[in-house]
């Protein structure tokens, strides 16, 4: 099949005829058709990897059980995503993972959003029949933002890959081999010393609680949080960002994978720069200068004082003695109203903002 052929590929998935985009993977085709296939190492931001083997499927005429995430669709493929054999294989994968995973679900901040919990639940795996050595390797790292708990790591490689493939930073790599394999920094340096940009992309892709946001610790269970989607207020890229919040306080930020200019990605400011909102330094009441000092005032007093101050100057020196500086941080609606007030309400075109700075 020609990968660039724009004509859809005909597949049969679980007995249903399905059309899929050429060049995509079996997993893409399943997800597009709304067919659930469990995964742990997959993230649409990353190149196919095939590490976790949870997405194994059967394809007629192919040997063994190919991973749906690394198998390209071909015309006429007949695919089975669910039967007892596949369930058994997936159960074994989950049992092996649980045999070396710190079951800290009572206090893990990722509980409720954990992909390992979800597949264990889906497959009915409540404990692992396997026993043996377990990792005890929590990374000591005194950075202020990102917590690494390797006892929960399932070696999916998502943190390593997002740092390399998306961020181009390669702070992590897969160190050691076999059982000892861990995603770590060179010589186990702290993230600060390893050149980390603190974008938190690794945290955003970690399917379990191995990587988490320190600032979010114990701020709310996943199911208690509300989320609101908006546009980031830092630079001009305009990333779509979803804030999690509880009781009127923002607890964290993430980005939806399927929309916005950023498609799931955020930078350090977008992901971690929201603490200012609830900072005690916030101004909470209007202030008026009285006898040289700024003192709290009511809104009525403050608005009257502004109007009086502006009117006084207009009467004495005319409207062109007034200047309004609007804000590139404020909304279009606010900026529109601001310049309209200065032009129509005060009567001058002295209105500008910091576009040049």
């Amino acid at each position: 099949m020609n990968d660039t052929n724009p004509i859809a590929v005909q597949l049969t998935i679980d007995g249903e005829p399905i059309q899929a985009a050429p060049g995509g993977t079996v997993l893409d085709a399943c997800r597009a058709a709304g067919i659930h296939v469990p995964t742990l190492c997959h993230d649409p931001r990353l190149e196919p990897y095939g590490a976790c083997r949870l997405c194994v499927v059967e394809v007629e005429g192919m040997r063994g059980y190919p991973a749906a995430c690394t198998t390209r669709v071909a015309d006429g493929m007949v695919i089975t995503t669910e039967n007892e054999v596949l369930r058994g294989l997936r159960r074994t994968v989950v049992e092996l993972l649980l045999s070396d995973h710190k079951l800290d679900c009572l206090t893990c901040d990722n509980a409720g959003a954990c992909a390992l919990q979800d597949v264990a639940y889906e497959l009915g795996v409540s404990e692992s029949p396997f026993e043996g050595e377990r990792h005890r390797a929590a990374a000591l790292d005194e950075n202020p933002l990102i917590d690494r708990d390797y006892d929960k790591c399932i070696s999916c490689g998502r943190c390593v890959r997002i740092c390399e493939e998306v961020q181009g930073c390669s702070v992590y790599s897969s160190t050691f081999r076999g059982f000892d394999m861990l995603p770590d920094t060179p010589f186990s340096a702290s993230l600060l010393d390893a050149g980390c940009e603190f974008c938190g992309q690794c945290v955003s892709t970690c399917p379990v609680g191995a990587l988490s946001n320190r600032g979010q610790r114990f701020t709310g269970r996943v199911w208690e949080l509300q989320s609101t989607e908006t546009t980031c207020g830092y630079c001009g890229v305009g990333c779509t960002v979803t804030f999690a919040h509880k009781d009127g306080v923002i607890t964290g930020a993430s980005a939806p994978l399927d929309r916005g200019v950023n498609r799931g990605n955020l930078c350090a400011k977008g992901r971690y720069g929201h603490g200012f909102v609830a900072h005690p330094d916030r101004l909470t009441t209007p202030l008026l200068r009285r006898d040289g000092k700024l003192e709290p005032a009511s809104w009525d007093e403050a608005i009257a004082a502004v109007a009086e101050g502006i009117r006084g100057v207009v009467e004495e020196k005319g409207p062109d003695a007034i200047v309004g500086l609007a804000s590139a941080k404020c909304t279009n609606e606010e900026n529109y109203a601001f310049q309209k007030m200065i032009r129509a309400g005060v009567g001058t075109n002295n209105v500008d903002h910091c576009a040049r700075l």
Partner: protein
Amino acid sequence: MAGLAASFGSGAMTNSIGDLGMADVILVVGSNTTEAHPIIGIELKRAARLGKRIIVVDPRRIRLVDHADQWLQIEAGTNVALLNAMMRVILDEGLADESFIEKRTEGFDGLRTVLAEYAPEIVSEIIGVSAQEIRAAARAYASADAAAIVYCMGVTQHESGTAQVRSLANLAMLTGNMGRPGTGVNPLRGQNNVQGACDMACLPGNLPGYARVDDDADRARFEKAWGTKLSSKCGLTLTEAMDAAADGEVRAMYIMGENPVLSDPDQAHVIEALEKLDFLVVQDLFMTETAALADVVLPGAAFVEKDGTFTNTERRVQRVRAVVPSPGDARSDLRIITEISSVLGYPMSYADPSQVMAEIAEVTPSYGGITYERLDTGGLQWPCLTETHSGTPILHAESFTRGRGVFAPVEYVPPSDTVDGEYPFVLTTGRELWNFHTNTLTERSAGLADLNPVAHVEVNPIDAERLGVCDDDWIEVSSRQGAVSVQVRVSDRPKRGLLFMPFHFRAAPANRLTSTRRDPIAKIPGLKYNSVSVRPCEAPTTDG
């Protein structure tokens, strides 16, 4: 913006963030993309990973250089010389797009005449990059099927900023790299809603949608819509306003959500100007350096506390939604403005921000088709003329906004603030990854604030050795405007003779050193080029 508007008829980013990946070559000039626009930085790094060629033009070794095919470490302030030499190579080697020039542009002969003086060998002496490298960059850009230009304040914040932008526009038109995916001239806007604030006419010479205050027909249209007479006299720009305040011509200012004491050039001058006012109103989230000088301080709402829209750098209007309530008595800026306007005798009553957008759409043709309902399913890129128009990802596709694109015969003019024996270093200013603008927000965000808490000046290792300073030593940086004590970060990022300082920190305000010398057209100050002197000093006993 003024430069692009003169060349093309519109001052905005011509293409979209998403189509940078379709370029074969991306020329990045004066943009520290991975730090100032990290998510566009991701797009550039992805392009590099896919084998696309990135050419970085910057006097500093910014992080993007690690992903670039070529890095031209020019002397600060010499962009125009480089671009003219590249165009000269393109012409000499027959790489120009003759048919594009003929069908889509005008004024080419004037440019051709100017370029005669810019042989790569001669320019090489000015910019400090070899003729061979100039030729390689020119060939790569001109022979690509699609080549995009990305630029930022490293181009605009020069006294010759407008000339530099026009030069970039010349290069794109010369090679027909306009109006198609993966091409164009793409300024990256620094703040979340600079584009929108410009579109909404928070500019002294414009009315919403870039109508002109001095155009009778434009003004008449808004006088009718707003039901009042409007002034036909162009207003003052921010930097002019500061001068006028210092001279006593301007007597009152209303500053909403800005901190000019830290963000504007020549801090001493700004403070003098603001202190001289009869009346200063500041509306902000925090007691900023500027708010501390005010007669009235009004507590506004953060972007996560209100509904509205922002327009991003690619002209995409997107929804902003209230996430949490404002603390205490803080109020949305819209509510504050409408109430003040009403008390001033010009009543404004909008039930909610969507009604303001409805009015914006009515009076601003490029926003004509934008409604909150449509934005709920994703952003729309202006021009979006009607409710059935799907927006415009690429400008100037069939013809330029002004009809024909116009070449500008731009000569290289060295910065007037030249280095001399007294001020032998060039200081350039900019942003760092973990801080934003005047740090008001980032220094109050726990965790993030700890990553880069104090200012450093980047000093080239050779200069550091000559000065006898190493990491974290203190030096005093002085210019004709003032002096700042700051700690050293020895770094191979700046070229020899160049210092870099972020403008985020009040304890070491870079803008105490910068001057208000500005571009005559765009009125943008030349913040990227300041001659300074340095000397080792003791750690100051108190901050600032």
